[in-house]
């Protein structure tokens, strides 16, 4: 684990959600919005198919920044803006870097991209470093 110092990059995280991930995440989270689990419904409302839950993608950002901090107790705050939509069966990548460290708390700016587009941008985390 690299030290969280200003300018340091966090370990990138990549994951490719499989075709049925959205069904498992729906069950695990309790969010059964049909745009995530019903391909016909999703297409009827103009989507290319089922789309990822935004909070699933946010969970990938949370994984990356909390592992960078050494575990769940290090993650104090995470703020994200959702943009576009994430799709199953395409790789998600979370990258980020430390912009400042104040009083033992690192500010990490992160982004979650898929197919070259940010689906979460301006993610900002506060991670306890000591």
């Amino acid at each position, binding site marked *: 684990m690299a030290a969280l110092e200003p300018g340091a990059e966090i370990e990138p995280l990549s994951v490719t959600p499989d075709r049925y991930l959205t069904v498992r995440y729906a069950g695990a989270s309790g*969010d059964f919005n049909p745009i995530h689990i019903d391909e016909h419904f999703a297409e009827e409302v103009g989507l290319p198919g089922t789309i990822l839950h935004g909070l699933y993608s946010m969970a990938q950002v949370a994984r990356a920044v909390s592992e960078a901090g050494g575990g*769940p107790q290090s993650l104090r705050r995470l*703020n994200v803006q959702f943009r576009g939509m994430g799709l199953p069966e395409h790789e998600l990548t979370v990258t980020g870097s430390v912009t400042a460290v104040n009083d033992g708390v690192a500010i990490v700016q992160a982004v979650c991209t898929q197919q070259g587009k940010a689906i979460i941008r301006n993610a900002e985390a506060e991670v306890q470093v000591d």
Partner: protein
Amino acid sequence: MAVNLEVLGKTYPPVLYAVGREKVREYARAVGETNPLYLDVDAAREAGHDDVVAPPMFAVVYAMPAVAAGMFDPEVGIDFARLVHAGQQFTWGPLVVAGDEISTTVSVKDVSERRGSGFFAFESVSANQRGETVCTGVWSNIVRGS
């Protein structure tokens, strides 16, 4: 779209969620967590926790039933066909572990209308059985204009 500004500040009754070990493990597996603190009771206990630790984003699971009360409130009047989850913030306190009972209170933090779209933000405050605030959430939604 017209928004009902009178719901600003409206607070809903607290909703209690009992954190189960297998639910934590189910959630952790669904999001791809590999840290044994979330999956292995022995590893969690060796690290000093009473039971498996809920990943921070498990806040979604224990807070969502309370948030849903606001989202589905007819006085708020969200049109789900035009709803976009625009942003999310969580601020965490002490860790949540299986066996905890989490009480979440939700209020309407922001209601506004800009360029024909409605903006709705809910705040959730979740506390454990010892009264410690384990997570505060801000759930920001946009209802696109027609």
